[in-house]
């Protein structure tokens, strides 16, 4: 049982200076001071957009902010107000339909969000009030409440740890939902309250907490952030561009007709022949006003050229289409028994346009399950001796070839492995995600999988960690004796320092930060091993030690306690003490731990490369490990020339910024200036023979992105970007989560705004997942945070291949056809109506009956294209998956460019002409039936309409596969249809 009081940190609040005071348990601190309830925000998580009350107005407002909807609203209003050729129903009904369908879809999606919110908000939480546990809903927690959290429960809010059920006041917390680390971290209760471990006791606590104001740091990712994407995707961009062209056509048509109408009417017997007199009102209307209403009437008459229902069809296509992704059997993973998950249906076609793939390493490329592979003590290599527990000590064991270190050094090394960690022993085996030890029926739980691997490695060599008892660590050594060590201080691992130490009498940490701290001559041999191991893709750790005298320890102890109590800048103070403490150590050896790669990783990466995508690895890992993973997954080929911008190449000196700039210029020259022929090509550039890979680390990146002071540095950012864009693969290591997002944003905002995709599994990837156009979450071991914030979630990295190459490609092609087809069919629908104006005295007489005008897009032609856009496979899925080159064909929004658009427009115009004049010439004869009866104007429209619907529907077959020959077949079919519908008659 864990107990914590809490202080709410509200993300989104503006920066406030100073501290805030929280009254624990809402009890006044002293009787003299009246308790003033402070105003803090509540604990509700709101990711939904609407409430029941504001749904209608807000949703309508949102919908009418769209150009197309607003346009139709205007048209509708014009029809209501002005006397127009078509009734308001003709545009009101489709508009109503579109608005309703969209509202239903958005309402449904919002309802899902409400449900997800409620799941969190309504979850039960126990709050201690007046010495009793009170069940509350999570959203009702107030700042200052004392919350009781049981084992394996989620923390409902930010908390301060007051007491736990264990007498030493510790608890193990996994922060998977914050930073993606699924390991267990040990937290210690506030010393003074550790004893208050019953409800009654805690009730006696009267305290206030002063703390910092909420800070926008990593932890602002608490709760779900739903980001409504505001930047336009290329497909939407193209649609809007096409829309504007058609709007111009529409305005042009209306202008032409209005002008010609008045030219034609200048002849009085045309304006008002005896058989067709105007009403008194019409005669008296002001001429300018009449012209204006005429113009509006023509607009209304031709407004169908802009497809009303296109948006709703596109929405439906996306919505229904996303089901095929979640239904895909090949993306189902037996292990976690889940398939792909689609959180946003709006991005299906973006999957076919991805240019940059940003991927996390741990858990995404690798499986994040560690295995101890080998170690090196004093420069001697030890490898794999699983079978014999005691093999380590035998002189003729499997390691004789490597030579052996002194016995005492070996033992020291293994003791260090056994001691320097935060591993806990858990007797029960219910703790999930961790390795159970079958022999002893207990589990190691730890804040890092590496530590478990190390402890288990040490166990293989005969040193078993037995657990922590009252600050004493117990170890069983090779001789089966139990050794006890008093744990004085744990200097926890942190990503900046990349070291951790325990003060018992020994220390461990990541190599590059340990080497400078140990004496030089010991390093050499170990470094060789470490480098080789790092090249093999192992995670390496060095083990070093230092003996402390009592006096030294007292000093360190005092400093540490001081630092821990500091309110401001605690981090820096702690870091300084740690730094001082961890100096002048003696290196004993190094370990190598393997982080296994995901299955089919290399194939997937190669496929993505072949498909023209640039894969960037953004990882918090160290460079060597990340680099080796990149080699292992063939992101870097052996032929790839690596450009490094890391601490190693830049150096640590004062002048590192200058050195960095030199390097940047050098690389820039190499990549861009020396390859002039490649300069203009924004196209994917790895057709050139030499492939380049770039490695950059977090500190260098921040140097580039946040230059210190001089003004010229902003230039280097663009140089850096150019270098990045020329490289086939970029590896960014030692990245903080926000840096990952920074990189993604930087690429996203480059010229041409390429479509970016981020894939990751942990909560530390959430920032980049949200930043990229398409965010993909891996439903991995590190919690659900990534998959919940993503647009799509897949079980494994390999599924990216099918998701992009097959689904993405298909959906892009489908939506491209859908959009162009809509423009086409509406152009050839409305063009005859335009031409008819020339034969009816520009009187705005509609060619088609109002029912046809209304239903054309809703009923007659919408379903076939919807079915087509859901099911069309112009290339079979198998071919698409196996031939990544095909992906390049649709890259750069290739199918929604002006060329295909013009093709469709001309096709539509041509067909409109054929339909109209075909029927026009047919009507030259006295009759079209064998009974001699004559057709009227509505029959004329009906024939045109019927031919139109037939042709437009049959158009699918020729679409895409149509070549020039088929155009004529098509013309023929028009004629054939003219013939066939001759008999169709219209009762009017």
């Amino acid at each position, binding site marked *: 049982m864990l107990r914590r009081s809490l202080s709410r940190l509200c993300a989104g609040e503006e920066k406030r200076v100073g501290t805030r005071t929280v009254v624990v348990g809402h009890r006044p601190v002293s009787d003299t001071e009246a308790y003033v309830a402070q105003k803090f925000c509540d604990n509700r998580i709101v990711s939904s957009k609407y409430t029941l009350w504001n749904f209608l107005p807000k949703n309508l407002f949102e919908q009418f902010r769209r150009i197309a909807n607003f346009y139709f609203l205007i048209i509708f209003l014009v029809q209501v107000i002005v006397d127009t050729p078509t009734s308001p129903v003709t545009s009101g009904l489709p508009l109503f339909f579109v608005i309703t369908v969209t509202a239903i879809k958005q309402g449904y999606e919002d309802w899902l969000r409400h449900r997800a919110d409620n799941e969190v908000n309504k979850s039960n939480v126990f709050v201690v009030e007046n010495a009793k546990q009170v069940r509350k809903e999570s959203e009702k927690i107030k700042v200052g409440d004392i919350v009781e959290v049981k084992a394996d429960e989620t923390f409902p809010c930010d908390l301060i740890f007051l007491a736990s059920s264990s007498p030493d006041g510790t608890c193990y917390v996994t922060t998977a939902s914050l930073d993606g680390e699924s390991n267990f971290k040990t937290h210690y209760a506030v010393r003074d309250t550790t004893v208050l471990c019953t409800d009654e006791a805690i009730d006696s606590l009267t305290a206030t907490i002063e703390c910092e104001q909420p800070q926008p740091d990593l932890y602002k990712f608490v709760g779900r952030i739903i980001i409504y994407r505001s930047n336009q995707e290329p497909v939407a961009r193209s649609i809007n561009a096409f829309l504007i062209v058609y709007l111009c056509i529409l305005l042009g048509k209306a202008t032409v007709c209005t002008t010609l109408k008045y030219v034609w009417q200048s002849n009085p017997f045309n304006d008002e022949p005896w058989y067709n007199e105007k009403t008194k009102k019409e005669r008296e209307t002001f001429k300018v006003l009449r012209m204006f209403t005429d113009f509006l009437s023509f607009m209304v008459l031709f407004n169908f050229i802009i497809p009303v229902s296109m948006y709703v069809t596109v929405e439906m296509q996306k919505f229904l289409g996303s089901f095929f992704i979640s239904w895909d059997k090949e993306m189902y993973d037996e292990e976690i028994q889940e*398939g792909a998950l689609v959180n946003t249906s709006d991005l299906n076609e973006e999957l076919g346009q991805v240019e940059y793939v940003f991927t996390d390493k741990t858990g995404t490329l690798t499986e994040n399950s560690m295995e101890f592979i080998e170690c090196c003590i004093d420069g001697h290599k030890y490898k794999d001796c699983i079978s014999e527990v005691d093999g380590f000590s035998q002189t003729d064991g499997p390691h004789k070839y490597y030579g052996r270190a002194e016995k005492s050094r070996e033992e020291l090394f293994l003791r260090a492995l056994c001691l320097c960690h935060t591993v806990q022993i858990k007797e029960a085996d219910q703790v999930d995600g961790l390795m159970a030890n079958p022999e002893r029926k207990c589990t190691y739980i730890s804040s890092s999988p590496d530590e478990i691997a190390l402890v288990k490695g040490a166990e293989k060599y005969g040193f078993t960690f037995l657990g922590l008892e009252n600050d004493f660590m117990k170890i069983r050594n090779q001789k089966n004796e139990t050794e006890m060590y008093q744990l004085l201080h744990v200097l926890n691992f942190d990503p900046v320092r990349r070291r951790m130490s325990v003060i018992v009498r020994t220390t461990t940490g990541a190599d590059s930060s340990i080497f400078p701290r140990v004496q030089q001559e010991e390093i050499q041999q170990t470094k060789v091993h470490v480098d080789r191991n790092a090249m093999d893709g192992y995670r390496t750790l060095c083990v070093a030690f230092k003996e402390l005298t009592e006096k030294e320890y007292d000093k360190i102890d005092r400093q540490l306690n001081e630092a821990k109590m500091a309110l401001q800048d605690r981090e820096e103070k702690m870091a300084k003490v740690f730094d001082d403490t961890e100096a002048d150590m003696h290196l004993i050896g190094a370990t190598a731990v393997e982080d296994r790669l995901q299955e089919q990783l290399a194939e997937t990466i190669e496929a993505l490369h072949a498909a023209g995508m640039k894969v960037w690895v953004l990882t918090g890992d160290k460079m060597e490990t990340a680099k080796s993973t990149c080699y292992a997954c063939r992101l870097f080929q052996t032929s790839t020339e690596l450009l490094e911008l890391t601490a190693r190449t830049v150096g640590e000196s004062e002048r590192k910024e200058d050195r960095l700039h030199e390097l940047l210029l050098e690389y820039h020259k190499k990549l861009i200036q020396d390859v002039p022929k490649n300069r203009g090509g924004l196209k994917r550039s790895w057709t050139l023979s030499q492939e380049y890979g770039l490695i950059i680390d977090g500190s260098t990146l921040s140097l580039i992105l946040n230059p210190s002071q001089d003004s010229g540095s902003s230039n280097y950012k663009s140089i850096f970007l150019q270098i990045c864009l020329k490289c086939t693969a970029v590896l960014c290591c030692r990245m903080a989560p926000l840096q990952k997002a920074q990189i993604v944003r930087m690429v996203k905002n480059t010229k041409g705004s390429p479509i970016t995709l981020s894939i990751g599994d942990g909560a530390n990837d959430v920032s980049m997942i949200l930043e990229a156009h398409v965010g993909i979450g891996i439903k991995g071991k590190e919690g659900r945070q990534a998959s919940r914030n993503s647009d799509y979630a897949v079980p494994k990295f390999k599924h990216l291949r099918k998701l992009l190459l097959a689904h993405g490609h298909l959906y892009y092609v489908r939506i491209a056809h859908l959009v162009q087809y809509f423009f086409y069919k509406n152009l050839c629908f409305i063009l005859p109506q335009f031409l008819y104006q020339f034969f009816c005295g520009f009187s705005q007489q509609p060619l088609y009956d109002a029912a046809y005008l209304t239903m054309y897009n809703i009923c007659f032609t919408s379903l076939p294209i919807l079915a087509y856009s859901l099911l069309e496979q112009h290339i079979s899925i198998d071919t698409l998956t196996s031939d990544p080159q095909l992906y390049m064909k649709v890259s750069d929004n290739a199918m929604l460019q002006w060329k295909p658009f013009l093709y469709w427009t001309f096709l539509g115009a041509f067909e409109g002409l054929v339909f109209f004049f075909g029927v026009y010439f047919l009507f030259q004869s006295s009759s079209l039936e064998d009974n*001699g009866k*004559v057709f009227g104007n509505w029959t004329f429209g009906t024939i045109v309409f019927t031919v139109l619907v037939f042709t437009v529907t049959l158009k699918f077959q020729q679409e895409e596969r149509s070549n020039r020959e088929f155009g004529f077949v098509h013309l023929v079919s028009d004629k054939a249809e003219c013939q066939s519908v001759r008999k169709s008659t219209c*009762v009017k």
Partner: protein
Amino acid sequence: MAVNYSAKEEADGHPSGGVGVPGGGAVGGGGGGVVKTRKPDNTAFKQQRLPAWQPILTAGTVLPAFFIIGLIFIPIGIGIFVTSNNIREYEIDYTGTEPSSPCNKCLNVSWDSTPPCTCTINFTLEHSFESNVFMYYGLSNFYQNHRRYVKSRDDSQLNGDNSSLLNPSKECEPYRTNEDKPIAPCGAIANSMFNDTLELYRIDNDTRTPITLIKKGIAWWTDKNVKFRNPTGDGNNLTALFQGTTKPVNWPKPVYMLDSEPDNNGFINEDFIVWMRTAALPTFRKLYRLIERKNNLQPTLQAGKYSLDIAYNYPVHSFDGRKRMILSTISWMGGKNPFLGIAYITVGSICFFLGVVLLFIHHKYGNRNTSADIPN
């Protein structure tokens, strides 16, 4: 045309029948089989493996398609063209704009000239009209499809609705009321009804034999029986039924005096119905009368001299219009119109020609790909 049929095979080798039970028992782990897995169904639909066919356009399929289309369309076109040419059609323009025309004197008639101006035009048929002959009148430059004109009618009034009869729709303005009485039938269309009377005589040795012109059966069945109905009420006296209404301004007689026969009078007068079906284009024809073939021995209209008597009432000169009388026979495909036949022949020829050109190109340059050759 060859079509490549490729039903994508079921991946698991068995057709997917299981709708409720997804994908067989692939998920291990026991649990007694009732465990509901989230594994997607292995159906052809969900896995996007529905059978599909896709025409593969190769020279082997396209070339025959061209030839076949050419070979089918050219004969059809020729057939239609010949049929159209066999149709006899004779047209007389009796507007009378030329001073020599007998109708020139009537050119500036007004609506209410009494007695009507009459004129007679003699003409000669070179060929006999074998089958039934249809007599049309044609108007030019008459915008029956003008929007203001098209909507100037009240369909419910024409359908016999009594309330609309006395209170016609506003769309009929300015032909809605006259002297505070509702007009029946209201609107511009009805008001401007064609009112020339055409009579046809055969001249045989200076004797004029009138030719029987049938005035029924010229309107659409649906118009006559569904859309147009006289108002209902007590008795069948149309005069009483149209009580309270007035005639259209330009009409000489009220609507219930259009014809003597009761089933061709009032709103269901066929001449009226034909006129009310607004034409699609400013130059149009409307069916006026039928001339039925009497017996099988004689043609309906023999070659020879005829005269057309016109009661010239309808003024078209003011808007530069023309009036015509057309005699025509009808084939299975309607009146004389060479367009359809020519269109078929043209398209067929183009296809055939392209087929030849492509065959030539394919034969000459397409040998790189030896596998794709043309059948025959």
